[in-house]
Structure formats: structure tokens, C-alpha cells
């Protein structure tokens, strides 16, 4: 079953700008879905639409197989969220902040110290949250999202404001929540490097359009496909004629022959073939496209 199924979401801002253009998302139950895109791509707008914080203009939203518009309250009981910056009452302590959300969710009070410990804020005592660092606020916001033991967490840039150590801790915490408690996560980020260590599925959005949706494995496949091999030779025409029957996608650029990525043994064999045919090989290079460059290619015009 899908925890989230959003279809054909289209949204225009009041000034007429198109924020989302026919975006469809599918977040599988038990997955960690990384929602990627540069700043201003439409990530937050999508998440706000999912949570009903923006009036839906076009499209359908379902959570756990139920229509959001019809079952909003029952659905929100099972969702924890963090949208944009942390929502913290700065004149209250961390415990008081959680207590007021506990009243709304009517979850057991002993969840308050539990979640505070979980996010590493168990010893903040009477300190008002206004005196917290941004990282501490972010962790408290995660505690708020976790307080009522939700089935699904929607987190908008959850590592914002965290130092590298805090980012690793947060990643481990989110992984543990997913693996040990079975919580489905939808996490937005503009940093692929940070997300790819955590997620099982990926959606890439740019300028309001979903450019890719699939498993991380499928994205890696794309990465593999985008990697290439370059032979620098003295006679590219002869080299091209020699290997084109085997590699139809091969092409020549000045003194270079460009091929899809090959295994090391195949590279050696090909080199031998060129030498045997009297073609001098001056160099062999492999260009490895990392996920970041795939992401950049997708999101660059």
C-alpha cells in the first residue's frame, strides 16, 4: 500500500505564477522517500498541499488509501510533520512546548521525556526554547513530529541548521525510526549527497515539475548509464569503424572515441584490438557521473 498517493497536483500562486505543474507522487509504505529539488523548485509547496496548509486547486491526495479531503482529521492523527523552519513557542521550555501538542494529540504524557531523550534534548530543563540554537530547535521540532507516534513523517529539510555531526545523528535517528518502528518518511532536501545515504526512493522536482520518481537503485542505474569511457587515439575514423558494429552508440569527437562505461577487462580487450589494428592509443579515461551530476543535469536547463 502507498502511504501517500498524490495525483496531478497543480498549483498557482495568487500572482499567477505556476508553482506546481501536474505533479504526481507515490510514497510506498515503509519507505524513506527523498523529495529533491533546488530551492524554489516546489518542494515546500507540495508538502504544504499534502498537509492541507494550502488550498488544493487541482489534483487528488490520498493517505493510507483514504481521501485527504474526506478524512482530514483521522489522517492527520497518523502524520507527524516539520514544514520549513521549526514551530516552537520561544517563551516556553521544551517540555512545555511538547505538553501543548500532547493536549491536542491526547497521546500519553510519558512520550514527552521519551521523545526529548530520543532527539538528545533530555537535559534542557527550564531553559526557554528562545535560547536554543537552531540545531536544538530543529531537533525539538522533530520531537514534536514524533510525539504522537505517527505512521508517517513529513519532514521539510530536517537537517537545516545542523552541524555535520548533528546531520549524521539526524540521519541515524531517521533510519532507526524507519527500520525499528516502521515509520514511513517523506523528506525534502536540496542536497542529494545528504539524502542518498538515507533514502530508498527518490523524487526529483524542478520548476514545479517532477522530473524523476523511482527507487534509489533506478537512479543509480541512470548514473551508470550516464558514465562514459574515452579513448584518445591517432586515427578516430579507423577506431570508430572497428568498434561501431559492437557498440552502436559509440561516437567520435576530434581525436576522442566516446563509449558507454565498460568493465575493466573489456577496456583492456578493446585497447588490445586498437593496438593490433595499428591504432595508437594515447590515453584512456573513464568519466564517472555521480548522483549529484545526474541531479544537476536533470535540474539544469
Amino acid at each position, binding site marked *: 500500500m502507498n502511504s501517500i498517493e498524490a495525483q496531478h497536483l497543480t498549483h498557482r500562486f495568487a500572482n499567477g505564477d505556476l508553482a506546481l505543474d501536474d505533479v504526481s507522487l507515490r510514497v510506498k509504505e515503509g519507505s524513506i522517500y527523498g523529495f529533491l529539488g533546488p530551492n524554489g523548485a516546489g518542494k515546500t509547496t507540495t508538502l504544504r498541499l499534502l498537509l492541507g496548509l494550502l488550498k488544493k486547486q487541482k489534483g487528488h491526495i490520498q493517505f493510507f488509501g483514504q481521501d485527504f479531503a474526506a478524512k482530514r482529521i483521522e489522517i492527520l492523527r497518523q502524520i507527524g510533520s516539520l514544514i520549513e523552519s521549526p514551530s516552537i513557542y520561544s517563551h516556553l521550555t521544551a517540555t*512545555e512546548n511538547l*505538553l*501543548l501538542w500532547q493536549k491536542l494529540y491526547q497521546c500519553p504524557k510519558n512520550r514527552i521525556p521519551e521523545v526529548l531523550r530520543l532527539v538528545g534534548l533530555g537535559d534542557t530543563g527550564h531553559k526557554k526554547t528562545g535560547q536554543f540554537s537552531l540545531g536544538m530547535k530543529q531537533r525539538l521540532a522533530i520531537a514534536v513530529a514524533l510525539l504522537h507516534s505517527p505512521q508517517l513523517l513529513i519532514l521539510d529539510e530536517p537537517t537545516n541548521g545542523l552541524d555535520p555531526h548533528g546531520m549524521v545523528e539526524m540521519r541515524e535517528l531517521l533510519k532507526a525510526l524507519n527500520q525499528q518502528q516502521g515509520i514511513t518518511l517523506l523528506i525534502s532536501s536540496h542536497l542529494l549527497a545528504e539524502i542518498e545515504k538515507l533514502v530508498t526512493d527518490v523524487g526529483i522536482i524542478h520548476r514545479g515539475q517532477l522530473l524523476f520518481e523511482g527507487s534509489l537503485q533506478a537512479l543509480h542505474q541512470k548514473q551508470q548509464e550516464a558514465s562514459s569511457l574515452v579513448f584518445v587515439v591517432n586515427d578516430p575514423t579507423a577506431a570508430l569503424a572497428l568498434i561501431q558494429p559492437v557498440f552502436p552508440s559509440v561516437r567520435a569527437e576530434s581525436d576522442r572515441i566516446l563509449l558507454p562505461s565498460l568493465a575493466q577487462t573489456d577496456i583492456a580487450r578493446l585497447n588490445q584490438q586498437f593496438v593490433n589494428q595499428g591504432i595508437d592509443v594515447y590515453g584512456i579515461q573513464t568519466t564517472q557521473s555521480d548522483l549529484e551530476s545526474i541531479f544537476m543535469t536533470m535540474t539544469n536547463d
Partner: protein
Amino acid sequence: MQFIHSFQSEWLKTKRSLAFWLVVVGSFFIPLLMTVGRVIYADNLAKLVPLPNFWEQLLSQSWQFMAILLLPMGVILATSLITQLEFRNNTWKQLHATPQTFSTIFWAKLAVILSMMLGFFVLFNVGMYFSGIVPSALLPTVNLPAAAFPLRLYAETSGFFFVDCLPIVALQYLVSLQFRNFLMPLSVGIGVLLASMIAVEWKYGYTLPYTYCLYNFFKLRGATMPATGHTNIHLWALGYFALVTLASYVLYLLKSEK
């Protein structure tokens, strides 16, 4: 049931907030000044305590300072501060993603504002009572007031002032819900209050929603105002409150971005 939980949650938010301190300090401010003034001018107090209308005079003097400026300003500030807590802390989005209807949020917040106002009136009355007896207790030469404390009169007077404040609460609530900038509700509040003060002697002054506290005070002092005549200002206040609250509710529900 959800409303009660929502109310409890909203009430917790006022803990140690500026609005909370405004209510506590504001309610005891005038009684404290009255107490200090009476202790300093002990001779005058000695002449007052035997009078049968001692408490009526105290009521009128206390409300004189409170009704004209402090009460309307306090209501403007407290209502705006409580509502703007969400904007200031960036918490509207989190609140709107909780499992409760938008209506529950709207009415629970309003109920907290009204409860705080009620709390203010109770504390102000307690303060007035103590400002009547504390100076006598502190000064060995001055007796305690001879007249009994007219609880009913004090409660009725406060009840009318409470009703007369309701239009201020409703309009400030509406503006504070719509605008992120705290200066907006504050400017509207001060602007309408000043206009009301100017218009209070105008024939149709009672049509302005922030005039009713002023009219009630003049009534308390026995002054007749040209504007009020046979007009029941309390009914006007209730009417304004109902109308503006309804408009505020509809506008809040219709907000496309929560």
C-alpha cells in the same frame, strides 16, 4: 471534547507570555496606585472611610483611570499578542496540521482571549477591594470602611464593561488573524480607539465599536451623553461582537494559505 483539548493547549501557550503579564500587571496597576495614594493622603482617607458611599466612590475613581484608556488599550494589546503568538513563533503551519478542525482552532483561541479578559476583571475587582481595606490596615489612625462591600454593584459594573469590550476583542482578533505584522492590529486598534474618543460626543458616536467602554464609564459617573440617549450601548456592543466575530470566522476559514 476536541474543543476542550484545544482550549487547554491554547491556554498553555499564554503561560509567561506578554499577554499573561499584561493581564496580571494591568489588573493590579490602578488598585496599587489607589492604595499608595490613599496611604500618602491619609487625612483625606480618614474622612472617606465613614461615608456610606465609600465603595461607590472607590469604584468610580478606579474605573475612571481604567475605562477611558487603560482597559481598551489593554484589550487591544492582549488580544493582538495572544493571536500573534502563532505568527511570531512561526507555528500556524504546525497548528493547522494537527487533527482538529479549523473551526475548533478559531473558537478555542477566542475562548482563551475571553477567559483571560474575564480573569482580568476578577483580578481588578480583587485589587479594588484590597485598595479599599489595605490603606486602613496599614494606617493605625484610619478605620476600616464603615459600609459593606457592594459585591453585586462591582460585579454588575464589571459585567457591563466586559460586554462593552467585546467589539474591541472581535475586531482585534479579526485583524490579528489576517496580518502577520504585529503593527497592523496595533495601528488599527489605536486608530479606531482615537476615533472613538473623538466621536464620543457626536450624535451617532455609539455606532463606533470602541466607544462603549467610554459611554459605560460616563453612565457610571451619572453623566448623560448626547449620543446614547435611549440607545442600549450594551446591545450595540453585543451586536458588533457577533457580527465582527462571524466575519472573522468566515475570513479565517476562507484563507487559502494556512
